[in-house]
């Protein structure tokens, strides 16, 4: 019996020939990360345990991104904790405002997570790195503290659901629409404790930016990890930037899967997930005429250059509707610069959208775009839970950058095809 790509990566890091789903293993971690919300607790656990040094100062990144630029005194204190710890332990990858980005956009861009890695992050969207063919999963701060000390972590080997995407994408359909549709099909616990392996010719044709969006939202179906086997798109992306050697794995033809789910992408319309669950996905033209107050284009899910180009394509020569605030947040400094150099900022400014420095800010209702009671936003983010972007009586609708930008222009939820 063969192994899946997730099983192969885990076996190699457990220093074993093979592993099987359900098995409890301890694995070597290639790279670990935490942010300004989760690192303070991890640092506290680390210090209280009496630990003196981190397992490898080149393999631990601290990225203040959630409440930065510092939102208030409390968040300034949290960020200072990270800064001081990074200095004290000589961490090579501490990313300060002006040099940073949203962690899950930044680390792949900087070549810090590479194919074949085991990556553990104190942030649930760590699963994003599965897009480059790594086994990557989110953990809490205490698990991360143990990794900071030992460089190892225990896992129960997950079984895998294989998704096979075939067919040709319709106009304006993106990786975001595929993952929203998928979560809509299987539900928010459809992949609980399991690996989601995204395969098929339609995934093969997606760019790395769109693959990162898909793997990013595996957690929204409850998955331990989402993963896409490396191909030429991966190699081209990785070759330019990898700071460590990549190891390329793929699933064996006789690997064993819990389920194989075929998806004909040619039937999928641009999707919107209505409140208050990412699984409430439906075609945009079935949502109805729902007026909106805010649009957010950004986040670890959809703040990459291709996302911004898509938004600009829709906004070009148009204006954000009266009564709507449109916030555009490039996910990293490099993306920010590239968007500026490509002239996308001119398009955004002419459309009367606001452009922000990289931050997670509004995605988690932290700062930089909080909703009042009764307000409604369309966002390219990943969660539309109660109170996610502000007041518990506000609402978030999840979509692709194309649908979000079109909605900003229309002043209600709608599709670019309507413009």
């Amino acid at each position, binding site marked *: 019996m063969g192994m899946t790509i997730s099983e192969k990566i885990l076996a190699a890091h457990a220093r074993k020939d093979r592993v099987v789903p359900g098995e409890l293993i301890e694995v070597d971690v290639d790279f670990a990360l935490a942010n300004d919300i989760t690192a303070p607790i991890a640092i506290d656990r680390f210090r209280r345990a009496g630990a003196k040094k981190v397992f490898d100062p080149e393999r631990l990144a601290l990225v203040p991104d959630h409440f930065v630029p510092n939102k208030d005194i409390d968040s300034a204190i949290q960020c200072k904790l990270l800064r001081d710890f990074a200095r004290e332990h000589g961490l090579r990858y501490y990313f300060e405002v002006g040099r940073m980005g949203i962690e899950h956009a930044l680390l792949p861009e900087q070549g810090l997570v590479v194919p074949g890695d085991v990556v553990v992050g104190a942030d649930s969207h760590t699963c994003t790195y599965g897009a480059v063919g790594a086994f990557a999963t989110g953990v809490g701060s205490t698990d991360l503290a143990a990794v900071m000390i030992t460089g190892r972590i225990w896992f129960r080997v997950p079984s895998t659901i294989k998704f096979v995407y075939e067919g040709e994408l319709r106009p304006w359909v993106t990786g975001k629409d595929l993952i929203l549709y998928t979560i809509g099909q299987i539900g*928010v616990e459809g992949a609980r404790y399991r690996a989601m392996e995204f395969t098929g010719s339609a995934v093969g044709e997606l760019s790395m930016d769109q693959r990162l969006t898909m793997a990013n939202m595996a957690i929204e179906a409850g998955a331990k990890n989402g993963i896409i086997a490396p191909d030429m798109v991966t190699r081209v992306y990785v070759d330019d930037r990898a700071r460590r050697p990549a190891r390329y794995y793929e699933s064996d033809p006789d690997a064993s899967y819990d389920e194989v789910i075929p998806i004909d992408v040619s039937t999928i319309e641009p999707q919107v997930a209505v409140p208050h669950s990412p699984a409430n996905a439906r075609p945009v033209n079935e949502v109805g005429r729902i007026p909106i107050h805010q649009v957010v284009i950004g986040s670890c899910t959809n703040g990459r250059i291709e996302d911004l180009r898509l938004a600009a394509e829709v906004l070009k020569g148009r204006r954000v509707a009266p009564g709507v605030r449109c916030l555009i947040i490039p996910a990293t400094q490099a993306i920010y610069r590239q968007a500026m150099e490509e002239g996308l900022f001119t398009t955004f400014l002419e459309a009367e959208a606001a452009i922000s420095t990289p931050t997670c800010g509004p995605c988690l209702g932290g700062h930089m775009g909080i909703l009042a009671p009764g307000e409604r936003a369309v966002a390219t983010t990943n969660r539309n839970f109660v109170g996610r972007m502000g007041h518990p009586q506000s609402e978030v609708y999840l979509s692709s950058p194309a649908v979000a930008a079109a909605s900003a222009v229309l002043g209600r939820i709608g599709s670019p095809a309507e413009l």
Partner: protein
Amino acid sequence: MILKGKAWKFGADVDTDLIIPARYLNTSDPKGLAKHCMEDADPAFAGKVSSGDLIVAGNNFGCGSSREHAPIAIKAAGVSCVVAASFARIFYRNAFNLGLPILESPEAAEAVKTGDELEVDLATGKITNLSQDRTYQAQPVPPFMQELLAAGGLMPYVMKRLAGGGEWHGKVL
């Protein structure tokens, strides 16, 4: 260990933003977090809950973010145990790592009502509903998780192993 307290019932897919909204995550102080525990599901919860009470919920409790502030807030609010039909995986790990007892019992999740007096035997997983005069059997806690609980959580477990000659490295559990 036997836990006894009143049940507070919640539905399915209770996410970490309901347990502790992100707007309060600019601190990790347990007392500060406890004041806002379950706020967006029941704004009065933190004021009503008494030390030793239990949370009972449906499937996928703790889904969403990896924030450890969620089990910290629950524990600091005085909740002695969470019983759910099932748990999201990061919350599951976090709870054991912190020493917050959790039990999986779809039966209890279905039958228990807010206000029911419950008695939970953590060693056997037997949940007694004193108000309804019924018992439910929770899923057994896996042996490795029992080891973690016995050690007092993940950090003491790791440090004990490191002190014992660094067996952590190279040894598969």
